[in-house]
């Protein structure tokens, strides 16, 4: 039509762009070759800087070039005055800034920047801090920048208060940001440490500040209950006692255990209950032949754990077949692991807040899960019914993670049953028809003689099952058990019922047929359990039981 502006067709534009790209590529390749030649010739001059600058500004992820640049800069540094060096490196910082605009997540750039700052005679940390803030305002989750910022903060001595305000600001503008919440969790214990002189507790935060933090987390998860970052922070606030136990478990090897019988150290060989268990809370040994030969004698057994300077004593009285010494799981609040540290009044208040949210958002999985954890921390047995109901809802609203919830539920049920069993002081453990999907805390069941696991959804008896050394009767009908690995060398097992399961290998059955000519006359089981928290490292290992088994 007349009067219209004529515009180049898209094909024409495409062609032009393609040519442009080709031209660029050619230039890049030839420049790269030139630089690499210079490097291999060992030339460290201004020209090298210029060439690498050209290349890096179009592709800042070329690590070799950054290395070459460092070589050149170090060379040039030697021949210059201090002022000139300052200038040299300052211009380098400007250049890196330009490169960061090309790729704000370039490893090479950020690393080079830290390096340049270490070489600068007078580094300008305020400027660097400003750069980080600008960068984070563009992308608040750029972890390169977070890393670099930590270095800058450390070097420039920014006060912890200021940093806390910085996280306030970032969380205020967008609270779906793990980085800032996490940074906050590292700052708070520094700024508001718990007044207690106990050095082990130095990572805790004082009560007053904690209440403020709870409020902040409430605000976040009431505003958006589906945002997980605030929930994680909340769990950190509540359960910040979780610590070192995993390390201790791995140390619970047989080294360092010493058995003393009637005041005489004994040379014994410790073994775990199952050959596949290298680390275990349960260790066995055979007493040297003849050491407890006379059953009319009274024997005193002591187990020392030399590494931790701890020991447990046990006496086997005349006429008794067995004897043990154990620390109670209930006394130690063994299973209140995750949220155990906070005072129960605070936990109660937090449970109320979460219930309030649940009323508004009955389908929210984060809220449900937090409530379950809080209930367990407060009173695991009293809240059992509610907990189970919440688990049911969880599985419905979050079917993707239903197996996780089932396992967690199984764990809690087993814990509850152990507690009940201890209160009742019985050695019968019954968990039939509870929809168990996994077995855990088997070390706690060392003394159990009868176990009923029928009508659950168990898939296997894990190797840890071998810790049930006193087990006489096992019922596990109507499960989906495929593997019987755990039925290994259970010396007292007499009855096994595994009807209606999916056992794959008949071969394994040899494990659980009791050998009446079993060689050992006396065995001792030591149950070394990593005690819950940091509360008492000294008492954290216990000697569960020493037993004298009289075999026929």
């Amino acid at each position, binding site marked *: *039509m*007349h*009067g*219209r*502006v*004529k*515009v*180049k067709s898209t094909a024409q*534009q495409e062609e032009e762009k393609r040519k442009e790209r080709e031209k660029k590529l050619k230039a890049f390749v030839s420049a790269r070759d030139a630089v690499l030649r210079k490097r291999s010739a060992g030339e460290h001059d201004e020209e090298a800087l210029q060439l690498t600058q050209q290349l890096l500004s179009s592709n800042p992820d070329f690590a070799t070039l950054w290395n070459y640049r460092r070589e050149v800069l170090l060379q040039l540094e030697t021949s210059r005055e201090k002022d000139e060096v300052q200038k040299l490196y300052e211009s380098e910082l400007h250049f890196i800034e330009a490169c960061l605009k090309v790729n704000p997540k370039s490893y090479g750039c950020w690393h080079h920047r830290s390096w340049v700052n270490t070489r600068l005679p007078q580094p300008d940390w305020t400027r660097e801090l400003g750069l980080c803030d600008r960068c984070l305002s563009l992308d608040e989750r750029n972890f390169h920048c977070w890393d670099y910022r930590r270095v800058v903060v450390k070097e420039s001595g920014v006060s912890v208060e200021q940093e806390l305000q910085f996280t306030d600001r970032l969380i*205020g*503008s*967008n*609270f779906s940001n793990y980085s800032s919440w996490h940074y906050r969790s590292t700052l708070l214990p520094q700024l508001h440490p718990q007044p207690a002189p106990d050095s082990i507790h130095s990572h805790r935060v004082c009560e007053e500040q904690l209440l403020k933090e709870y409020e902040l987390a*409430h*605000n*976040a998860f*009431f*505003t*958006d*209950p589906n945002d997980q970052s605030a929930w994680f922070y909340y769990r950190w606030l509540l359960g910040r006692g979780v610590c070192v136990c995993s390390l201790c478990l791995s140390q619970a090897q047989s080294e360092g255990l010493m058995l003393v019988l009637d005041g005489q150290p004994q040379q014994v060989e410790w073994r775990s209950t199952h050959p596949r268990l290298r680390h275990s809370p349960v260790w066995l040994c055979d007493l040297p032949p003849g050491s407890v030969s006379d059953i009319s004698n009274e024997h005193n057994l002591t187990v020392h754990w030399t590494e931790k300077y701890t020991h447990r004593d046990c006496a086997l009285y005349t006429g008794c077949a067995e004897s043990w010494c154990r620390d109670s799981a209930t006394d130690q609040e063994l299973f209140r692991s995750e949220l155990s540290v906070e005072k129960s009044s605070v936990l109660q208040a937090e449970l109320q*807040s979460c219930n*309030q*949210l649940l009323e*508004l*958002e009955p389908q929210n999985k984060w809220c449900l899960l937090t409530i379950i954890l809080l209930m367990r921390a407060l009173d695991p047995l009293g809240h059992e019914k509610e907990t189970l109901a919440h688990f049911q809802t969880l599985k419905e609203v979050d079917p993707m993670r239903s197996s996780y919830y089932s396992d967690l539920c199984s764990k809690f049920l087993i814990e509850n049953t152990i507690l009940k069993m201890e209160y009742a002081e019985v050695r019968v453990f019954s968990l039939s028809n509870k929809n168990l999907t996994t077995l855990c805390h088997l070390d706690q069941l060392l003394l159990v003689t009868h176990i009923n696991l029928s009508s659950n959804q168990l898939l296997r008896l894990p190797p840890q099952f071998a810790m049930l050394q006193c087990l006489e009767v096992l019922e596990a009908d109507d499960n989906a058990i495929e593997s019987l690995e755990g039925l290994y060398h259970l010396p007292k097992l007499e009855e096994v019922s595994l009807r209606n399961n999916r056992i794959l290998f008949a071969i394994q059955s040899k494990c659980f047929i009791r050998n009446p000519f079993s060689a050992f006359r006396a065995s001792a089981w030591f149950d070394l359990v990593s005690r819950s928290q940091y509360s008492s490292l000294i008492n954290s290992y216990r000697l569960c039981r020493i037993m004298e088994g009289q075999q026929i």
Partner: protein
Amino acid sequence: MFLLYFKTWRIPVLKICCVHFGYCVFKCVYFSVRHDIACHVTVCSFKMAAEDLPSQFDVVILGTGLTESVIAAACSRVGQSVLHLDRRNYYAGNWASFTFNGLLSWIEEYKNQQKVQITESEQVWRSLIDEGEDVVPLSSVDSSISNLEVFCYASEEEEKEEETKAPLTSCQPVNAETVSEETTGDSTEAQDTVTEPSQSQEEKDSQPISSPADPPVEVEKKITYQKLVKEGRRFNIDLVSKLMYSRGALVDLLIKSNVSRYAEFKNIGHILTCRNGKVEQVPCSRADVFASKQLTVVEKRMLMKFLTFCLDFEQHPEEYQDYTEKPFREFLKNKKLTENLQDFVLHSIAMVTQQTLTEEGLKATQHFLRCLGRYGNTPFLFPLYGLGEIPQCFCRMCAVFGGIYCLRHSVQCLVVDKASNKVKAVIDTRGQKISCSHFVVEDSYIRDEQRQSTAYRQISRAVLITDRSVLPSESDQQISLVTIPPLESSAPAVRMVELCSSSMTCMPGTYLVHLTCSSSGTAQEDLAPVVSELFHVSTIPGEEPSEGAEERSKPAVLWVMYFNMRDTSALDSSSYSLPSNVHVCTGPDGSLGSDCSIKLAESVFHHILPDEEFCPPAPNPEDIIYDGDGPQAEGPGFDESVNTEAEEEGAAHEKNPSTEPAEMDSVADTTPSSEE
């Protein structure tokens, strides 16, 4: 006359030059300068040829308001020849922005118009009418503004060099003195002294500003009336107060058509409301709700839940279907929102009335929410230098594609072909007959004889210059939108927009406040109660600031203007008895956005050109192929001179960026472009 237009065109260019976005923008500006030369050349060459306009156009458009300007740009863009006229000596009609002095002149003009009865001479054009043609005369008087009142509370004293500084601890309201502007009227030469608003903008841009770096801490200093006049060029006072919804029709159009490059924008920083006489923040975004100190956690949840639901309320019809016939307010109650939250949603987020039905309320809420996050945490943008920039930007695009512009130039009457009942030509104020196939006209040019009804709705407006923000906060350079729920349930809600000096609409140390509501009485009757509730208005001349701490905390009013503007937005083609190829554009409506005007422009455009695309993106100047038919070839003689002139201008500003206030760099950070 045409030289004047030259200047107008260059203003947006200069403005962009002054702000440094980096090399890219400069390059772009350079091209648009070059590009504009094409249009200048067209205008100039025609001027050289004859004093008369060409006698034939596809579309003649009368009025330069937003709707007309968009139609002009759209028609011109697809190759129609467009003549765009306005009887006023400034662009944008009732959408215009004025400097303070420009506004004073505008007020003068209004007062004179009330007195003078214009007798119309019909004889001149009678001779031009042929057999078989009929005549529809147009109105030469604009009666869309009424009840204009002006009060000044700033001290009239001469500014002394050594002022006694008020103690630092108290912010003293100005030594007030009521001055009635009416007494200064009666000037017969008002027509000649009217300041061309664009011209004074030009001056502002090119003259070094006396104290650009002055910190706005000057509150302690009295701002006198003389100072307001002296610094009047710093003001850009809108007649219509609107904001741009960041996903509204206007922003979409600006992006789509590439017109956005002619303007700059600023975020609205605060969304506020007034409850029980206290100004407070409205939590509307996720971050706001999280940070809010006024809401309980349960309220936060309820509000977020409701807002999330509104975002895709169509997906859950079961939630609201029982309420479709009931007011939105009842629906909010049913949703168990507290009184607090109901007020927030109704007045500040949906911005609807008590009577609005549920579905409309939900739609309004949804629109608001969808606008969040596109350009920051609030849903609105404001064009720097005032809303009057926007129609001018579209006029500019129209001119770039060959449209011809004449201000102070109107149409006396339409020539209608009796047989087809269509307009075939217009007769302009110089008595020239210009034929056209379509005629687009602003409502205020239509005589009452052509109307079915002369009962209109009205908008009440107040414009205030104040000395402080209604919500003191850490950053004093924020634009705030304040919704004030009606004091009585029957009264309309009042909308207030407070502009800071970095929006380039007022001088540093002052705030420009616009109040808008639909009228129930005169503007003063409607709005004065709100003004006295939120601001300190001194009643006695020379009154000392009262002792009450409450009064001191309120910002003081320095100057205020009330007026009513006719709201014709409810009218459509059935409201007029006009030929079918006459398209009437209604004036600005009372709502916050401009969607209504843009939609009207689009529908008029499709009426005129059913098969054409509405404002397709303007091509990149690099991609335009200039050949023998191109506009460049028409005036080679002019090409050079204009070119150098434009480049010199650009260069001058490159060298001297300090003519702009220093804060520009940091605040003018939002330019709508395609999705970020």
